[in-house]
Structures are given as C-alpha cells and as structure tokens.
C-alpha cells in the first residue's frame, strides 16, 4: 500500500513542531543549566538577564505554582533545580524573551553560585558508595550456586557497554498556548502526550483536563522522547501561563545533547558454567546500571535487562541481580531495546569467552543452547510459538554461516594486515510493557458523511510507520480506499490516558483498539443495511471495495451512500474502543509471571573487515532472518529492521558517549559524536522475514518490529573481536563496547612510547 507519510516527507510537507506556524506574539524560551555536576546552589543572579533587551521574564523554581517535580517512576527530579544540582546540564532557570536569540543571551547571562560537591561518574564507585536509585532486583531460575560443581568449565568475566545518544534528527521542542479557564494547549514532540499532560498539570497545579497536548509527528524518538520530552513542554506551559502568551522552545543540538540522558551504560560481572559439549548449565550475572542523577525510567530499563539476560538461550540455572546506580550524569533513559541490548551483550560475551576456552566456534555454543518450544525463561514464562531454531536454520539456508567462515579464513590466510571476522547473533525479545498496567490503548474513529474516515489513537508517529499500519488496519476492516482514511494527530482530548508509544507496542495496542473500533462501526453499518435490504442475517451483508453486497449481489449502494443513509437514519458514525492485552501478568515480589504477550525472534550474520594497521574497519555484510509475523506493511518493517540494525551496529562500534571525570560531556555535538553514515552502512544488508509465523494476539497476526532488530548490531562487536583475534591470536582483550577504532588499535597493539 502506498505510504502517504513518505510522500509528504519527500516533498518536505510533513509538519514537525518547529514547522507549525505559531500565533503572533509567541515568545521564546531558553534554559539556563548547571555547569557543575554536583553542588549546592548558593545563589542565582538573574539581574543582568532581566535587564537585557527582549527578555520578558526569568522563571526559577520559586515561580512554579504547583509541584516542582517531573519524576515518573520515582519522584526524585525537579523541573528546575532549587537547592542543589546533580548533573551538568541540569536546568535551573528559564528565560523567556521575544526571540530565540534574546532568550539564549539572557540564559547565558544568568550566573549561579554553586558550591561543588564530589562528582561520581563511575558506576562501580556509585555502587561502592551505596548510591542506589532503587533496591536491587533479582531473577532466579533453578539453583546456579549448586550447579557450578556439575560444570566442566566455569569462567568469570566482565563486560561493559557504553551509552548511546539518541540523535533523533529533530531535537526536543514544544510550544504552549494559554487558553481560557487557566489552561494550556501544548504542541510537543513527545512519545508520551499523557506524561506531558500529567506533569504539566502537576507543575501548574491545575487539573489534567485543563491541559491539552497535541503531537503532530516526531522527527525520530527512539526512546529519547518517552520521558525526556516532558520537561521542555512543561517549561513552555509554565511560561505561557505566567505571561499569558504563547511560549515556544526548540533545543539547539548541543543543549539537547548536554541536558538529556542517553542509553544506560552498564558494567556487568558474569560467571558461566558449561559442559565440555557446549551445553550451558549455569549463568550468574550482576548488572551495574549507570542511571545518572535521577530515576527517570531506569528501574524499568533495569528490569528489562533482567528479562533479556539469557537472550535467545535456555539456561536451566540462572541468577541475575541488577543494581541501578546513581551518578552525576544526566538521567539516562529509554532507548530502543530498553535495557535488553545491555543484558544480551553480556551473555554473548560469556559465550565467546567460553568458546575460546573450549576451542570451539562461539556459534556452536549459541546454536546448542537456543530456546526450544516450552523452555522456561528465568522469569517463569515458557516459550510459545518459539522461532529461535526456525530463524537460525532459515539464516543458514539464506546465507550459509559455513561460507562466511571459509571466506574469513581464506582471506585471513592471504592477508597479513587486513583481517575478516564474522559473528552470528540470535535474538529473542519480549513484547509488552513489562509494567502490565501500561498495556492498554484506545482508538476513536469517526466516519464523516462523505465516507471519509478519521482515526485517532494514542500512538505517536515518529518514523516507525504506526500511522500507516493503523491506516492499513482501518482500510482492511472497512474495505475502502486508503486515501479516504486519515490518521489524526495524537491528542489527549481524543485519546485520554494513553500509554507512551514505546516498547515496540504502538501498532499492537493501538492497532488492536483501532481494529475493534472500526469493527464496531462496520457492524453498525451492516446492521443498518440489513434492515434496509430486509436481510435477516447481517452476515450476508458485505462491504467490499466500497460496494455494499447483499447475499453477494451488488445492492447499488456505495460506501458513501451507506454512510450517508446511516447518518440520515441517525446512526452514530463514531466509535471509541479500548484494548487491553489479555493474559499478561507479572509478580514483582517473586519476579515470576507471564509478562509478555509474545516474543520476537531472529538471527543475523555479521561480517566485517579490519584494517589492522590503522585499527579502522568496515562492516561488509549483514544477513538477517527476522520474525515479523504477518507484516502489516512489509516495506515499513523492512526499513525498520535495516535502520535498527545500523543503530545497533553504531552503538557497538563508532558511537561513543564520553564524559570527563567532572561529568562534562565531551561528545556534545555531531562533530564529536558519530553515528553511522552512508559510507558506514554495509553494501549488503539483506533481510528476509521468517515465513509461517503466527501470532494470534495482534492485528492480523503481525509482530512488533521497532526494538528487536536493534540487537543484531551486537554481532558487529563480536565479528570485530574475531578479526582482532585473527591478527593477534589468543590476545586477551577487555570486553568494552563500543569497539571504536581507538579500542581496536589498543587491542591490536601494546601501548607505545
């Protein structure tokens, strides 16, 4: 089906927050933020800012009429710092002026006197000082402690993964317009309109119904606008209410990078025990999550790390403990995969280490321990419709792993300074919000008298194609031209109390709600037609391709006629429907339950070439077999997989977030933070979808697509590692991601003087 959004995009006609014409008289806001990572605020001097040309107001914590609190899971984060600051980049004042530049100059003129306190950036140090955001979490299956004795080998190791900047191409931004009755209307680039609404109401001390949040579309989110789009919107709303004028804020890239959190860096210690034949018997892992200065979504991210700590493998004895550690960095937040990739990286590292010890290829251990139908996860759920083996085998057929091995070994025998490496990366990812209550959605569908249809849901379009997917659902139900259907902006007055568009569930949950709403409307229309055509059996009325049939005979009524007649007969052409995922539950005390509606599986083969003289590399090929169920829109899903793979590879290779010991972000611009570009993308990125994968819990047997393929990128790390080892056989290399050219060169050579 034609992708209407894509057509708007290529013509530059899609309207993002900053593209919408604001009312005359709109003011601009700019944030003043801390340049110290930890300290007591002694004083804030706004006098020169207040006297600057164009500056209308400077707002501080004291100006907040309601609660100065934006924390979602834990109430530990002020909108504006008041007594102390906990990271560099923490906002403490908002300057409102008649131009963006005047607001910026004003913010730069504010000085804060801050008494510095010790700064912690290192997660182990935070743990040692007992700086924990929440009590530790633990998942357990079997009895790992007593299983070590039965293992032929037991290995211990450490694995680290770095942060990752979301780098949504559209930076954070919002504008707020004061409305009568003391309320505001906010247009925000957020994945979570409800969070914006809830927090703004709390900050302004008004009821939620006085806050309307509208989201046109996002220029990328990737999790970075799930919780961290809220504050900018709330600040605009605060300004709008205080000054009685619309207020807009669009973050400059550097400010965005400095003030917002990123993917959580992790340091993890593992012990793995295997039999000589490669069977994994036991796995013990401790995760130390660098949460940054406030909870944000860290507890939920931490939990997902545990959910995915055994990736796509069955391990009978597992003990996994996770600590969320407080440091003086910007609060880290959701990012595609949501802690899952961090968990999977460690088990892959453990398998690679075990393979080296057993002198076998890692893929032998991987394949031997792949999940089978009915296997139990450490959280008690058992696999259903498990596709782990099916994906692996389909990959072997598509792109024989043995051939890759041969390519690499032949190349490596011929070339002294250039080495090839490869790795296989299977994935298994659970779909549902792990917080069960969030698995709900609603849709509001209007049919207008000319037969055109408007669909509102709680889902936010951010490039993942949810609008097109829901459109295709509505079209399938109504059997009308897609041009007749429009997906509306996401708006809190049309979809109340919506969960964020996150956890890859956007199309599943909202699509289900839309399918149900459309179904109700169609049913209503068919009943009406049955009555008109004296047909006692409603099922014998059919609407196909905009034509109404009665017992397979064309009635002469078109869709438009049906709708118009129904309207004349005073039949409601509007339906609101709700959906909640059935069956899922999870007991937080026992860490057992059935948290996921289903799992997504897949396998990738990643091949790389390493220039061992310079330490630089190229990704040659990525071949994927991915389980997308019955795709709602194969073109969209394909592009999703391709994009996710590159983002995952970026995380593992060239994307490096660097803070200095004072908590200053060194990689605070696109000139220092590098994401994959045209040349970095492999020439072969080939994705096949697994055939015959059923999934009864979603619209038309589809499967969520957003996050799972990100984790194929992990294969790039281990492919590079194998190339390093081809140059330096047996060399012990610290397992630290990303494997930047710097880390590669330092793995290939000793320090030189």
């Amino acid at each position, binding site marked *: 089906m034609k992708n209407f959004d894509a057509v708007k*995009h290529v013509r*530059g006609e899609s309207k993002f927050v900053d593209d919408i014409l604001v009312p005359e008289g709109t003011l601009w806001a700019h944030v003043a933020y801390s340049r110290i990572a930890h300290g007591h605020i002694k004083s804030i001097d706004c006098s020169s800012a207040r006297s600057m040309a164009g500056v209308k107001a400077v707002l501080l914590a004291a100006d907040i009429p309601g609660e100065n609190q934006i924390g979602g899971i834990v109430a530990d984060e002020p909108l504006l710092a008041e007594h102390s600051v906990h990271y560099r980049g923490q906002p403490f004042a908002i300057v409102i002026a008649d131009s963006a530049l005047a607001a910026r100059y004003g913010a730069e003129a504010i000085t804060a006197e801050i008494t510095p306190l010790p700064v912690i950036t290192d997660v182990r140090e935070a743990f040692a000082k007992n700086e924990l955001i929440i009590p530790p979490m633990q998942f357990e299956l079997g009895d790992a402690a007593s299983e070590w004795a039965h293992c032929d080998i037991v290995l211990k190791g450490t694995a680290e993964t770095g942060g990752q900047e979301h780098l949504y191409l559209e930076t954070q931004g919002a504008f707020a317009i004061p409305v009568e009755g003391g309320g505001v209307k906010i247009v925000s680039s957020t994945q979570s309109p409800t969070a914006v609404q809830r927090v703004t109401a709390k900050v302004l001390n008004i009821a939620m119904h006085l806050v309307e949040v509208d989201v046109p579309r996002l220029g990328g989110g990737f999790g970075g606008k799930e919780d961290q789009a809220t504050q900018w919107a709330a600040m605009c709303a605060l300004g709008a209410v205080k000054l009685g004028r619309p207020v807009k804020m669009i973050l400059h890239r550097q400010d965005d990078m400095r003030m917002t959190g990123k993917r959580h860096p992790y340091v993890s210690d593992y012990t793995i025990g295997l039999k000589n034949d490669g069977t994994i018997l036991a796995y013990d892992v401790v995760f130390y999550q660098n949460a940054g200065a406030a909870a944000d979504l860290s507890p939920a991210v931490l939990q997902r790390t545990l959910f995915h700590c055994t990736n796509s493998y069955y391990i009978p004895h597992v003990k996994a403990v996770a600590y969320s550690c407080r440091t003086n960095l910007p609060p880290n937040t959701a990012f595609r995969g949501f802690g899952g990739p961090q968990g999977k990286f460690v088990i892959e590292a453990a398998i690679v280490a075990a393979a080296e010890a057993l002198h076998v290829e890692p893929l032998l251990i991987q394949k031997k321990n792949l999940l089978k139908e009915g296997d139990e996860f450490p959280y008690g759920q058992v696999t259903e419709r498990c596709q782990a083996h099916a994906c692996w085998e389909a990959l072997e057929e598509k792109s024989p792993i043995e051939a890759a091995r041969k390519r690499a070994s032949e190349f490596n025998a011929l070339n002294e300074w250039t080495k090839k490496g490869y790795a296989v990366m299977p994935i298994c990812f659970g779909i549902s919000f792990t917080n069960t209550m969030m698995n709900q959605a609603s849709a509001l569908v209007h049919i207008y008298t000319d037969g055109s249809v408007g669909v509102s849901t709680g889902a936010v379009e951010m490039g993942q194609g949810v609008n097109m997917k829901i459109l295709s659902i509505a079209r399938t139900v109504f059997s009308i031209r897609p041009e007749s259907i429009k997906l509306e902006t996401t708006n809190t007055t049309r979809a109340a109390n919506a969960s964020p568009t996150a956890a890859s569930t956007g199309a599943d949950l909202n699509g289900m709600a839309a399918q149900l709403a459309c179904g109700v409307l169609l049913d209503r229309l068919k009943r009406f037609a049955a009555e008109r055509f004296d047909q006692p059996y409603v099922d014998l009325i059919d609407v196909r391709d905009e034509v109404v049939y009665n017992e397979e005979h064309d009635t002469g009524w078109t869709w438009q006629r049906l709708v118009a007649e129904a309207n004349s007969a005073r039949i409601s052409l509007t339906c609101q429907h709700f959906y909640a995922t059935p069956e899922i539950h999870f007991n937080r005390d026992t860490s057992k339950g059935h948290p996921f509606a289903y799992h997504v599986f897949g396998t990738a083969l990643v091949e790389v070439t390493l220039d061992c003289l310079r330490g630089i590399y190229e990704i040659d090929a990525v071949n994927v077999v991915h389980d997308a169920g019955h795709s709602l829109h194969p073109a969209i899903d394909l592009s999703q997989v*391709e*994009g996710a793979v590159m983002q995952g590879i970026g995380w593992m290779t*060239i994307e490096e977030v660097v803070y200095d010991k004072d908590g200053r972000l060194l990689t605070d611009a696109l000139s220092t933070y590098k994401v994959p570009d045209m040349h970095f993308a492999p020439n*072969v*990125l080939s994705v096949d979808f697994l055939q015959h994968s059923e999934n009864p819990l979603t619209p038309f047997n589809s499967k969520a697509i957003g996050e799972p393929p990100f984790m194929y990128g992990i294969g790039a790390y281990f492919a590079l590692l194998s190339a390093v080892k081809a140059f330096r056989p047996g060399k012990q290399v610290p397992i630290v991601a990303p494997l930047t050219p710097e880390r590669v060169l330092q793995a290939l050579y000793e320090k030189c003087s």
Partner: protein
Amino acid sequence: MRTTKGVSRTMELSLECIINDSIIAETVNPGIVLLDFLRRHEHLTGTKEGCREGDCGACTVLLGELRGSEVVYTSVNSCLLPLADVQGKHVVTIEGINQPAELTPIQQAIVDEGGTQCGFCTPGFILSLTGYCMKDAQTHAKREAAQASGDSAAAGESAANISGVISSAAAAILAIGEADTIAAADTTAISANETDAISRADAKASTTVDGNVCRCTGHAPIKKAIRRINEYLSLHPNTGGSPISHLVGQKILPDYFQTIPSRLGELQKRGTPEQPFDETVGETAPYIVSGGTDLYVQKAFTMHAEPVLRIPSHYQRAKISESDDAIHIPGTTTVEDFRSSPLIEKYFPGLASDLLLFGSTPIRNRATIGGNLANASPIADMACLFMALNADLTLQENDVTRTLALRKFYTGYKQLAKKRTELIAMISVAKPGPASHLSYEKVSRRKYLDIASVNSAMIFDLHDGTLSNVGISAGGVGPTMLHLAKTSAYLNDTPMDALLFAKAWTIASAEISPISDARGSADYKRLLLRQLLAAHIMRCFPGMVKKEALA
C-alpha cells in the same frame, strides 16, 4: 563581544536573489545564516535544522550561480551559509523541487525503497541527490559536446576524468583497502569486493550524500534508492542538450528552472549591490569570512553581530595556477575546487580520493584552503598536507604583502604569526619531481565526515631505495599541526632498511605531545601516529615494516 543589548551590528544588505521561483528583494542582516532566513522569514519549513554545524545535512539546499549562460548548482549547508553569499544567486529548497502533482523520480525512489521514516532528514537527501543528477547531466552534456565538435581528446579526457573520479570514490568507499595495497598479497580479496553490490555510479552518488545523516533508516534503503535513481539516469541519458532542460524533461526539476539563467542575468545586469568590504564596527578587529564553515560553527550565535571583513571578489575569482617550479593556490580556493583541479591531479595523483575524507560534499563546496590554514586547528587536513609540502604563504593586508613559510605560521595553540586582518592570499608549493611520492593518512572515529584523531602527510623523493627531500607532518599530536622536522631530517638521505622505521619512530615520538580529548586518549594518538608513519613507509616499501616491529 555582545553587549547586554544583544545584537550590536547594524549592517544591512539589500538582498536580491531568487529563492525557488520567487525574486527576493529585501533589506537583511547579511550575517545571519540562510537557514534562518528560509525558515523564520520565508516560512519555507521544508529545510530542517538538525545540528546547525554542518554535520547532519538536514538543512541542505542548492545554490545556483550564473557562469556564462549557464547556472551551476552546488549543494551547501544553509545553516552555515551567510545570507550575504546568496546575493545574486538562485537558492533551491525542497519547495522548489516539488512538481505540482507527481513525485520526481528521486522522490519516488526514496518512497519506494523505504528511504524515509520520520522524514526529518529527507528533504536534505532529496536536495543532495538532485544536485547529483545535475552534475551527472552536466558531465554527460560536456562529453557529448566534445564528441560533437570532434574533439576526441577532450571527449576522451572528460570520460577518463569521470571514471577517474568515480573509481577513486568507489575505491575510497569500498576499500579499507589501503592496507591491502601495502602488502602485495593483500590486494586480491578487495577487488572481488569491488565488483559486488555497489556500482561505480552508486559510489559517486553516495559521495554526494556524504553530508546527509539519516538516523532512522541507517542508509541501507537510501543506497537502494540511489541504485534506482542511477538506473533511471542511465535509461534517460542527457544526449547533449542543456543539463537543466534535460532534467526538466525528465521531471527531476520543475519547468521554472529554465527561466533562472535569464532572471539571474537580469539581476546581474541591474548590478546587485556588492556587500561593503569592511564592516568594522567600533574598535574590534573584524573577522575575515571566507567559506564560514568554521566561523559559523564556532560563533553560531554571534556571527550575525560580529564585524566582518569580506574577501574582495577578485580574490574569490582567482584560480589555481603554476609557474616554472611552483603551484600557486589562492587562499579562497574551496577544498572541492582544489580536489577536482586537473593541475592538482596532474602533480598529486590520488590526492583527490584522499580528500574525500575531508568533511562532506557541501562542506567541501564552501570550505576554503585559506580558512583551513587560518583556522589553526591542530588537525586541519589542508594544514597537514601543506605542512608536509613545505608551503609558502603570501599574506596580504591592504596593499602590503609578505611571504611566510607555513612551517613558521603556527606559534602555539590557535596562535598565528599574522594579524587577524591579514589575508592568506596565496599558498605556493614546489612542484613535485618525477621521483616524488606523497602519502596522506587520516584516521577518525568514522571514516567519512569526521575530523581526524590523527592525520599525517609525508612527501619524499625516492632514488635507489634512498629517501630524500622528506617532509612529514603530524596532526592531533601537539598544540598545532606539527612538522616532524627531526624525523624528516633523519630519514633524509638514509637508505631504507628494516631497522629504519624503529629508529625514525624513536625520533618522532620525542617530537610529539598528544593530549587526551574527545577524539581519543593521548596514548591512542601516540600509537596511531606510529601506525600512520608505518603506513607511509609501507606504501612505498611493502613489507619493510614487520608486524613484529609494531608489537
């Protein structure tokens, strides 16, 4: 500096230009960037702001300039382009590409291949790819014209030139390969690689979107779209007409493009006012603004209010030339003009593909060599090159000129042996002899559109296994671009043998003082320089540096 009143400059310019299909005649601040004018003033919101530092390409537009009877278009980052520089030119944004009803073949290819997700980067890609099609139609037209006039040499030459550019681009994209050219045995495998997946044209097109970043798609779908565009172009080649009318015929450009040459001609005839030369305000020394690709990054929020000294247009029109024993490069030469200069290709074959590692196409279209040298970055690529080549600078202020060796130009971190208002008018280098070899090495975190962690150039003459006239530069390992004078001297007139490298490195190692920063730790930079020096040597003496020597 800024006063508490904020904006201090009062300079105004009567701007006359064409934006898409509309004539603009406005009084503007010439120091603001085009992006702001487009978005905030003209409400042309299809052009996006993703970074405001030339690194994402969301703001890409095409800038057309009348040359003779033709308008020549280049892609530029509107976020770094002073509005003054669009005077008398044609600015093309996505709104100016759209056809009323249908999509252009470029837009269609992006849609069909899933090359857009959120859409924020997309207009920038469309503009870059449209620029690519314009270039393609131009080269075709040139070749046809040469053939028609019976100038087979020119026809052949331009064809050869094209394939030269393409193959080096392809090589640069595909090859991690430099390492492979080092040891003879290593070459076999890459050529196999070269034949698969990407064709030469695809590589060339990829190069023109090297300044566009798409965070959503990861670029694989865009590569497929490029393949499709190239298929379209090869099915509809320009058979000699004007490139623009050809592209209009192919629905890649809207009709109005045909009217632009005469409309720009009229603007020119009326004589668009030149910007005042010296915008000195008060006692602050003005900034010389050239391409602006550095100034508008460093002073993004103040440049519009800073006093500037614009480079007179006769300097801007100067061309690269040669005398008996030297090549003379005007300071205003853009990196792209330098890269594609036949003279440079003649004396430094292969440099053109090395320089694909400099910035991106739109950056190279604007960045000047004078700006690169004056910028004084310790990792500036052109400084690296010219330091090794022992360039002489001609510095000029008013009518006074003087010559200074580049090796004496940098006196400390970002410190220059010149006044802020002294212009780098010319860069002169000795012509390389027949026995000369130039090797350029740059390693950055990402291979393309990234600033070097360490870079180094080495030039030398080679006679019977002995080096002479050695010049080695090293960037990223000291407060300025370094000339490794002692290492160069040591290698001079010394027969190359297996032990030489180790000794040379001991000397080089004492000449450098890297520090840790966002581009790498001090230890890494030291190690990396050693590797790059080894790479220089291995280019000419494969097998001379042993793996064991680099433990």
